[in-house]
């Protein structure tokens, strides 16, 4: 059974419907809201599978269905749906992981009083993400993109009574919006340059050769190709959404939301959107690549930003103590890997890593959630420990996730997707710096994940809460098991044959991955694992306040990393102050300058009145008074004529008339 592209809108529409149901359900209707949300996700998953079947029938085809949203002048603003393997794989991943996270939430949020609203927001989140995926128009993609931002805002701030959660939500929204402004400008520019925002439109779409050529050929005054400028602007959006350097600061704070939300944000929906966007518009990003006279290529920027992000995220993760924060920075790092992959020209590797990462990162977050839930919301791993016994299922599945993330060879999907990226970086002919950054990050990843597992699960419980922890009900563990299985099984997509690669991009030449590079990365992973075990596994801390061995060795570096490289402070000192200053300036201008001007004019008027009055009193009025006294006395004389006697008046009128006529007649006055 296949799903035709006309009906592709059903996939986002179903969760949206569930969100509407959840929004209108009173807080008592828990079952209705949750079942609607999960049923919608399952249905969307089934539809996505059908869509996948349809897409794989001809992987090279871009099936589109375009329609008019509204007329504008003589033209129209058009939207559309696009079905190709990229869409289909993403849909399947989002709906599958989403469904599992939804089910997990049933258990995790069971005691929350805003249960229905939570499912409403989750559904909205999934719907918006699916909207991004199925869109054949940058405009509709942007619409969904912003809705993703909204949903993340609502979910991160779900426990809005906590000031930290509220602040984190706002930070996430604002930070991603900074990137979105770039995306908006890029989109507007693209629209202006091409007159359409459809990706594929029978030859007229922006991702089709005619358009790409036109965009690449025209250059700006600074020598940049228009396509480069547009690509970079759009990339700004991805930087914000996908937590790339330098806009990654919101991602760790987003941990303030409930853990399933973190799982959703970090695995399936929000951060994946940025990578997906760049993969979607890859032809545009790549358009300037073979044009050698340009000062800069869009993809180069992407690769370096990705490499910096990968290394930076891994470094910061080493020094975090909050279990979710470690995972958050590992997400930053892995997203950097994906961007790196796109930047070095292999968007397929990026999507592959996106898919595998979605599964094992969801697994890790849900596992962390399971731990947190069991340990009564204790998230500091220095206070955990010894959970491998009481939480058997969680421990095992978490270990699978950890090994997938660390890139333990062969069995785990993460290894294959990471290898694909490293190979692509190796094959990149511009620079090898991203490769070295990536390899360093690989070591660090293995290191901090080992630390995480060791501190959380091994040794003895180091707090009362951790001591009381026991395994969670099946509604929470079953999704873990499924995800763990997937984290392993997904290896099959890449090995023994690079099947996924063929489906996504049949023309791509598969690099015959150098065996030496693979060996090197295996050695590096082993190094990381070993170092982690040596530092944290053997010397298990005995109580929560015992010093960190790394902090003891390199206190200043550790403090710097623990403070997340001071980015927040840096931004607060620069942009925060700048915008506050601008606000103060604007307000001051208003209050004192413009308002002052207006008041000055008013004062001048008043002053004029005052001067006038004084001058009148002393100068003019004195004269006037004299004159008017004279006039008054004369008037009094004259007023005696006003006897009030009617006859007198009448007589005067008659005589006046006679005199007048005589004057006219005799005097000849004509």
């Amino acid at each position, binding site marked *: 059974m296949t799903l035709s592209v006309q009906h592709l809108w059903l996939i986002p529409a179903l969760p949206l419907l569930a969100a509407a149901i959840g929004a209108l359900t009173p807080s008592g209707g828990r079952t209705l809201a949750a079942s609607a949300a999960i049923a919608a996700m399952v249905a969307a998953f089934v539809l996505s599978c059908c869509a996948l079947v349809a897409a794989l029938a001809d992987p090279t085809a871009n099936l589109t269905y375009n329609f008019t949203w509204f*007329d504008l*002048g003589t*033209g129209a603003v058009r939207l559309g749906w696009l079905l190709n393997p990229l869409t289909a794989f993403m849909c399947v991943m989002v709906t599958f992981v989403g469904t599992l996270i939804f089910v997990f939430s049933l258990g995790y949020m069971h005691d929350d009083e805003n249960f229905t609203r939570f499912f409403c927001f989750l559904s909205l989140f999934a719907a918006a993400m699916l909207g991004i995926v199925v869109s054949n128009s940058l405009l509709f993609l942007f619409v969904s993109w912003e809705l993703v931002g909204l949903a993340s805002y609502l979910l991160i701030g779900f426990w809005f009574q906590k000031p930290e959660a*509220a602040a984190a939500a706002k930070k996430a929204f604002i930070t991603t919006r900074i990137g979105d402004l770039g995306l908006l400008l890029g989109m507007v520019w693209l629209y202006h340059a091409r007159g359409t925002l459809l990706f594929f439109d029978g030859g007229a779409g922006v991702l089709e050769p005619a358009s790409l050529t036109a965009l690449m050929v025209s250059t700006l005054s600074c020598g940049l190709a228009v396509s480069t400028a547009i690509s970079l602007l759009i990339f700004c959006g991805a930087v914000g959404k996908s937590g790339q350097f330098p806009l990654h600061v919101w991602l760790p704070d987003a941990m303030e939301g409930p853990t399933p939300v973190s799982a959703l944000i970090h695995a399936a929906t929000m951060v994946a959107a940025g990578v997906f966007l760049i993969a979607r518009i890859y032809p545009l990003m790549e358009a300037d690549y073979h044009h050698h006279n340009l000062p800069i290529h869009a993809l180069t920027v992407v690769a370096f930003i990705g490499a910096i992000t990968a290394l930076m995220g891994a470094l910061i993760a080493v020094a975090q103590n909050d279990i979710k924060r470690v995972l958050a920075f590992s997400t930053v790092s892995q997203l950097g890997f994906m961007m790196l992959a796109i930047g070095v020209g292999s968007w397929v590797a990026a999507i592959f890593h996106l898919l595998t990462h979605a599964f094992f990162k969801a697994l890790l977050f849900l596992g962390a959630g399971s731990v947190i839930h069991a340990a009564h919301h204790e998230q500091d791993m220095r206070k955990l420990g010894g959970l491998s016994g009481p939480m058997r299922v969680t421990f095992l599945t978490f270990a699978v996730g950890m090994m997938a993330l660390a890139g333990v060879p062969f069995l785990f999907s993460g290894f294959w997707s990471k290898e694909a990226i490293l190979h692509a970086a190796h094959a990149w002919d511009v620079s090898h710096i991203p490769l070295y950054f990536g390899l360093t990050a690989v070591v660090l990843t293995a290191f901090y994940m080992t630390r995480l597992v060791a501190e959380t699960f091994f040794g003895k419980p180091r707090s009362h809460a951790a001591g009381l922890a026991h395994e969670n009900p099946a509604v929470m563990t079953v999704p873990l098991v499924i995800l763990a299985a997937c984290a392993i099984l997904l290896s099959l997509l890449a090995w023994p044959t690079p099947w996924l690669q063929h489906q996504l991009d049949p023309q791509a030449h598969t690099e015959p991955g150098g065996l030496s590079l693979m060996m090197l990365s295996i050695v590096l992973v082993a190094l990381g694992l070993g170092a982690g075990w040596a530092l944290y596994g053997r010397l298990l801390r005995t109580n929560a306040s015992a010093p960190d061995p790394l902090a003891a060795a390199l206190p200043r570096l550790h403090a710097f990393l623990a403070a997340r490289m001071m980015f927040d402070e840096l931004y607060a000192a620069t942009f925060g102050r700048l915008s506050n200053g601008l606000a103060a300036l604007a307000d001051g201008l208003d209050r004192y300058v413009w308002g002052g001007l207006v008041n000055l004019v008013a004062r001048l008027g008043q002053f004029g009145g005052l001067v006038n009055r004084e001058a009148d009193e002393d100068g003019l009025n004195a004269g006037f008074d004299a004159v008017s006294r004279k006039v008054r006395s004369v008037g009094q004389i004259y007023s005696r004529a006003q006897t009030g006697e009617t006859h007198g008046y009448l007589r005067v009128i008659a005589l006046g008339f006679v005199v007048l006529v005589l004057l006219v007649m005799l005097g000849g006055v004509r």
Partner: protein
Amino acid sequence: MPLLSLIIFVPWVGALLLAALPRIGDGAARVLTLIASLSTLALGLVALASFHPAAPGFQFVEQHDWIRSLNVHYHLGLDGMSLLLVLLTGIVSPAALLASWKQARSPRYFGLLFLALQGAALGVFLALDFFHWFIFWELSLVPAFFLIKLWGGPGAARAAYQFFIYTLAGSAFMLLGFAAIFAATGTLDFTQLARLAADGLLVEKLAAVSGFWPQAVFLGVLLGLAVKVPLFPFHTWLPPAYAEAPVGVSMFLTGVMSKMGVYGFLRILWPLFPAHLHAASGWLLCLALGGVVFGAFAAMRQTDLKRMVAYSSVNHLSYCLLALFAVSYSTGRIGFTVPASIAAFAGTLLQMFNHGLSAAALFLCVGILESRSGGRRGLGDFGGVRTAAPVFAGLCGITMFSSLGLPGLNGFVGEFLIFRGVFGLAPCTATIATLGLLATALFLLTFWQRVFHGPRAGAASREFRDVAGIELVALVPLVALMFLFGVLPHLLTNLFNPLVTSWVSHINPVVTTAQLPLP
């Protein structure tokens, strides 16, 4: 049936009825006011039903001789832009009345003044002869003044005087300008004047009187309209007036009256003085940009919620002017393209409508907050309202996101089209203007965070009613319309697409080649 006259005068008849019934009860006065106010919506829908968007020119035209010796006609007409604004008035006015439903002090006089204000605003949107257009324009000031002064907050008297004097001073210049136009051309009819201007005769005739006149007249009219919109930096009357006015009046001021200025720009200044506008548009573009950026940043700094929303109005309206000035700026230059201009104009009209909805609803929300806290509306007077009043928080949140331009709600389409247009015409301006978008998000989210999130504090720590009854009746339709026009913008764009197209096609590049320096 003289539909347009009915639209204008039914509210006034309602006001007269209220004036003639001194012994009417408070409840009956409220109901009568509401019915008279709703007539605008009903008649607007009648006009909508028989409106032909594709027909050129004005529809439902009523033209009668009035003062023959002055060549003044009673001339009413309706095109897509007027219809949009009439409908907006029809939507916002009843909502504003409902928002002031609990107004304890003499609802009869309140209703009387409000209906007078509504009729005057409608007259401005429908009149096509400067003579009565200006009468309506000035008449709208009088009830607004009394509404602010008598029903407003503690600083209301000062704010009302400032509002009145400032706008009156502005329109005095406009009146002088039109007196000059009348002296030179002998007509005050907008359509005739526009035709003269299109042939280049208007400036010629003015210049025949004295070389300085065209510029002076242009500046006079510009000043009058700029104060009304308001264009940065003529906006200082706005925040106190909006903040001190009672909630319903704030809603009407921001929802409808602020549109009068933009309407004037599009109906009068641009058609009559395209060349002068073009010559001045560089400066004006900077001023509009200043409004966008400074309006938003100044809002960030406010602690009074109403002032904050008032500044956001400055910001949002400046987008409309930004688009207009960008079109004017680029006519005859290399950057000019027809699709971008169409998008800019369509965005302007959409933004006018959508800002009316969102800002009115935002004021309504602040008013509800104010009513719960005993008149206080500082940023620090609340906290955790979302816990106390979840439904209200939801509706207010939707309003806020609509004002912030979230896709899926009404604000987005207009802003997108404006950016699309302005970017096509003046890219740097559009780039800087995005700062305004960012600052808008910043201050609205700060407002939301401080007032609604966190633990219950301030007014919300005591008993805090959720929205119910009348408030819900006022707020829910506005919110529903936000969704409707966000998803289906063609409901609005179809009304003015042909109009906008014809505007752009009538831009005469020849006029603009003559670079007229400002004095």
